[in-house]
């Protein structure tokens, strides 16, 4: 008796695939999975890379492949990287935002940016450690292209802000 894989089971498997640079969140939390299609023992997953130049893309593809391959009833896996639609920080799920904050990384707020011209640092960055808005930007760039560096004047901690894009 052959077990039929379903899209739900594949989504559940994808929830175990961590973002290699932010292990607290999964690729699903990050909104990187556009779609999952399952049929005839074949699974097709469309992945939206967060940043084009992200060096973790190769690792993500590999991890997605091995997680989906491990699903019972899946014999063939096709993974497609797509820029259509472009990944935006608005795709990060509420659960993903909560996990980012617990990880010590200020999540991007709101649904945007929708327009290209709205992309930039937040007018108010909220310290993920103490919740203060009394913060200042120290550097537009950080340890990865997707993060900026801030300092909190209330709890005196430096912190990283996930950039809206």
């Amino acid at each position, binding site marked *: 008796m052959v077990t039929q894989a379903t899209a739900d089971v594949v989504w559940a498997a994808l929830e175990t695939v961590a973002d290699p640079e932010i292990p607290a969140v999964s690729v699903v939390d990050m909104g990187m999975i556009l779609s999952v299609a399952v049929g005839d023992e074949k699974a097709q997953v469309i992945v939206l890379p967060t*940043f*084009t*130049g*992200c*060096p973790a893309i190769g690792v993500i593809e590999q991890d997605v492949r091995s997680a989906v391959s491990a699903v019972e009833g899946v014999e063939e896996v096709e993974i497609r990287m*797509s*820029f*259509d639609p*472009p*990944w*935006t920080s608005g795709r990060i799920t509420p659960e993903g935002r909560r996990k980012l904050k617990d990880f010590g990384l200020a999540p991007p707020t709101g649904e945007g*940016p929708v327009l*290209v*011209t709205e*992309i*930039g*640092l937040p007018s108010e960055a909220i310290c993920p450690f103490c919740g203060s808005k009394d913060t200042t930007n*120290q*550097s*537009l*760039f*950080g*340890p*990865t*292209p997707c993060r900026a*560096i801030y300092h909190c004047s209330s709890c005196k901690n430096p912190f990283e802000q996930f*950039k809206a*894009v």
Partner: protein
Amino acid sequence: MTEALVAIVTSLGDDELILGHRHAEWTGFAPHIEEDVAFSSIAQDEIGHAAAYYSIASSLTGLTRDALALGRSQGEYRHAVLCERPNSDWAYTITRQWLYDRADSLRLTALEDSAHDALRHLATKIRREERYHLIHADMWMERIAHGPIEGRTKLTRAATTALSATAGLFEPFEREADAIGEGWLTVPSEELGRRFLSEAVDALDGLGLPAEVTPDGWRAEFVASSSGDLIATAPSDPGETSTPAGLGGRSGRHSPDFSELWADMTRTYRADPEATW
């Protein structure tokens, strides 16, 4: 027809790769740690964008991305001469980044209307990421332009040299007419160049650096202010050795600066092109 598309993605990829390589030269050497991180990040973005353009080229030519990035002879690269210029001083680095990213933003905006799906999708994604490069460049241009006279003078010298070489970014791609015919490009490069120039001159004026441009449009002469807070700089172009205005890159004519960069950038690849990484 495919050649026209290969020419576009190769030119765009080469611009990003070669300027990304120059930006990466600041890693470990920038004036302070934040800028070390900034230029390393911008370099990573640009080289990543190059890889994405080469993916399209790869699907059309069958060559691998590594072979495209590192396995070509110097004359096969199609980037603008502006991108290969040495970093020189901080004012030049910033001015070039400012000019390049403004020019890039303009052409990406135009590519968002391309009839070629992969190119249009990629341009749309890249333009969003590039916003942070523009913010970085604007912040530094304002800081130097509103600072002491030494910095402002260096800025005008850098702008005089870099602006003329920026013309090279708007040289037509090879077989551009074919690409326009297919709708892959919607605005001719030279037309984009004229738009860029008028925007750039306005922006320089807004920074308190009023420039008069020569009739060809690509040489700036900065006007000395009566208060003496800006030294006039006439168009002098000692650095532009390939051709007077830094043209030729789109047809593979590069300056000796590129020979040095190319030898450095491709050394490891050439040692064993068949190696698996």
